[in-house]
């Protein structure tokens, strides 16, 4: 039998039995739609969670916590300064195979608060802040156009004296020189006083990068709770606020002097600290030394390690452990596991539906074979081999599977559009709310069609065998 002949016979049979086939395909359509829908959902959620919330291609390396090393015995073995990451250690981390780049981060160890926001959200906020210092060379692409992220005070040139902001250039203000210590009247004084005779000069704002997370959290949760307007990241850039270093809302943490700076948001970065400000490392280094010891200039608190190949992550983690450091737990692994479990459950559920559908298909085909036994007999009588009969029935099953699969995938597409639409229209914003929850990779569509066809063929297998083994003589003489 030729392919063309088989196609004609199969097409004619399907046309004739379309009601049977329609019934038989419902299970397949529902099963495949379920499968496609939930796997696409899992893919979409995965992309948001692992791509944006917990990026898997970057690890944060931190000093090993010494919790387990207290006690007199451990004291002897723990090398002094093992909890410090200095430039030498950074070089060592960089040398681990699989590591693409490292981004050392220096945490501002001085308690600080930020003040401002009136212009932006209509109310002045005052908040204890966490700040990280980062090498500006590592985030060139994250700075908004027209802004700069660099240590403007690294080599203070000849200062331009001024009396008001307007006398200074764009993105500059008129204030006390960099690093001026302000004495405070008492521990509650957030303003402080510069030493007598301190000039006012044109200063650059301290450039600040914020994490994408901040905008998401603000827009998704905080904003609604306080009734603030929605922030569009691009429109927030250029926003300025005050930093008071050395001051804390927890009175006991206050220092005896303050340093005040004005800061300006210049962009958003994935490498920025999640809940806090990221500024060029030079500022942090100077402030940490000013309020602490000279050694603090070399003390990093973590290193962001970029590992482009997922397969290298385990080896890099091992290399990090060998350096007596550890990978900070970001929750990415748990999130990945949760998503994998979620995917697996729905894959199983749809497998069960498709499996039941296959049983249903088996019933329908047994019925069809019974109904068509004379026809099968006459086909044998005019020259069909057993194989031809099998091929005809399998061909019908495969066609049914193909159509059921296509219909199922189409249904999943339609359902995903509906779902996204409902989410966009009726569901209030929440952090990381995506425009679509679904990703339909090509392999998912291929797998869905493959499953549909294989389950139909599987269901039709026994009926096809029965048909092929039928004795044509017995059938045609009514026995």
């Amino acid at each position, binding site marked *: *039998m*030729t392919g*063309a*002949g*088989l196609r*004609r*016979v199969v097409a*004619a*049979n399907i*046309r*004739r039995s379309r009601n049977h086939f329609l019934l038989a395909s419902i299970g397949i359509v529902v099963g495949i739609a379920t499968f496609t829908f939930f796997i696409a959902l899992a893919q979409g959620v995965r992309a948001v969670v692992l791509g944006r919330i917990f990026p898997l291609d970057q690890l944060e390396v931190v000093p090993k916590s010494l919790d387990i090393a207290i006690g007199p015995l451990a004291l002897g073995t723990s090398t002094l300064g093992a909890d410090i990451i200095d430039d030498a250690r950074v070089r060592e981390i960089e040398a681990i195979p699989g590591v693409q780049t490292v981004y050392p981060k220096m945490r501002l160890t001085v308690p600080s608060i930020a003040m401002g926001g009136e212009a932006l959200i209509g109310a002045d906020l005052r908040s204890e802040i966490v700040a990280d210092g980062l090498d500006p060379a590592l985030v060139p692409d994250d700075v908004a156009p027209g802004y700069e992220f660099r240590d403007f005070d690294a080599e203070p040139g000849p200062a331009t004296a001024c009396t008001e902001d307007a006398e200074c250039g764009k993105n500059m203000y008129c204030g006390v020189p960099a690093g001026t210590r302000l004495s405070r009247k008492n521990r509650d004084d957030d303003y402080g006083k510069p030493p007598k005779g301190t000039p006012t000069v044109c200063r650059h704002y301290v450039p600040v990068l914020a994490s994408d997370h901040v905008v998401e959290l603000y827009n998704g949760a905080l904003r609604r709770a306080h009734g603030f307007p929605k922030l569009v990241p691009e429109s927030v850039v250029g926003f300025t606020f005050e930093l008071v270093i050395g001051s804390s809302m927890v009175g006991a943490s206050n220092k005896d002097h303050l340093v005040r700076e004005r800061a300006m948001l210049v962009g958003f970065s994935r490498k920025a600290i999640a809940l806090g400000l990221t500024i060029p490392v030079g500022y942090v280094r100077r402030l940490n030394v000013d309020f602490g010891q000279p050694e603090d200039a070399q003390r990093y608190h973590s290193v962001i390690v970029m590992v482009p190949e997922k397969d290298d992550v385990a080896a890099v983690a091992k290399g990090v452990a060998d350096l007596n450091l550890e990978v900070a737990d970001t929750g990415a692994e748990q999130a990945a596991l949760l998503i994998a479990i979620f995917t697996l459950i729905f894959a199983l559920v749809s497998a069960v539906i498709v499996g039941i559908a296959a049983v249903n298909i088996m019933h329908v085909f047994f019925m069809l074979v019974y109904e068509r036994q*004379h*026809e099968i*007999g*006459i*086909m*044998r*009588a*005019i*020259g*069909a*081999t*057993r*194989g*031809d009969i099998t091929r005809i029935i399998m061909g019908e099953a495969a066609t049914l599977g193909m159509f059921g699969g296509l219909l199922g995938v189409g249904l999943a597409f339609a359902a995903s559009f509906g779902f996204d639409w409902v989410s966009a229209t009726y569901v209030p914003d929440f952090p990381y709310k995506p425009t679509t929850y679904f990703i339909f990779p090509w392999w998912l569509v291929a797998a869905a069609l493959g499953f549909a066809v294989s389950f139909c063929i599987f269901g039709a297998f026994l009926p096809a065998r029965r048909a092929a083994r039928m*004795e*044509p*003589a017995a059938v*045609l*003489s009514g026995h």
Partner: protein
Amino acid sequence: MIRVRGMRKAYRTGKVVNEVLRGVDFDVEAGEFVSIIGPSGSGKSTLLHAIGGLDRDYTGTIEVDGRDLHSLSDTALSDYRNRSVGFVFQSFYLLPHLSILENVALPAVFARSGERLDHAAASARARDVLEQVELGARTDSTPTMLSGGQRQRVAIARALFHRPALLLCDEPTGNLDSKMGAQIIELFRRLNADAKITVMIVTHDPRISAATTRTLRVEDGNLFDEGTHRPTAMPEPATPEAPQ
């Protein structure tokens, strides 16, 4: 052409063994017009199915044109049914969802590669054989639109599609009234006389057996050769049914 030797056939239903044929020997020469008669249940259909390669579960030998049917594989036997034999059954067995033309051309679908007609050639051939049975005007009808006699002629056209040398007919007029039956028998006579096709007809109608040139009788598991005879024309006028 056909050589049957020591052929035995038994049906087993559970523990009951029904010995239908108990050693049948006969020959049929090419071009003969043979009727097989005998009581109902005597094994006439069984014999015909075995000769036609529809049933290979027998002992003894059946040779057709020198080929022992037992020695053929499923594929070779299918090819034998496809090209060398034409079957005509009492119940026509047309496929109701296919047109007359598609029904007649169906054997082309199952033809072995290399000897297969393409779609256009198969349709042309089907038209040809439908002309032969005087149904050339009904190619696009479906079987349900035809009378019994017309359906049987479609079935005959299908049997003739691959121009077989042997036509095996199992009570071909059993579902027809005697007028239509006579026309069908006349058609077989013409095919036998003009196209030199060997025809074997199973029947319990003595008028049909009288219309053939040789009669074989199956009874009590044995086959008796009643010999050759001059054919007597069927009593009904043998004018073909007017095409509708």
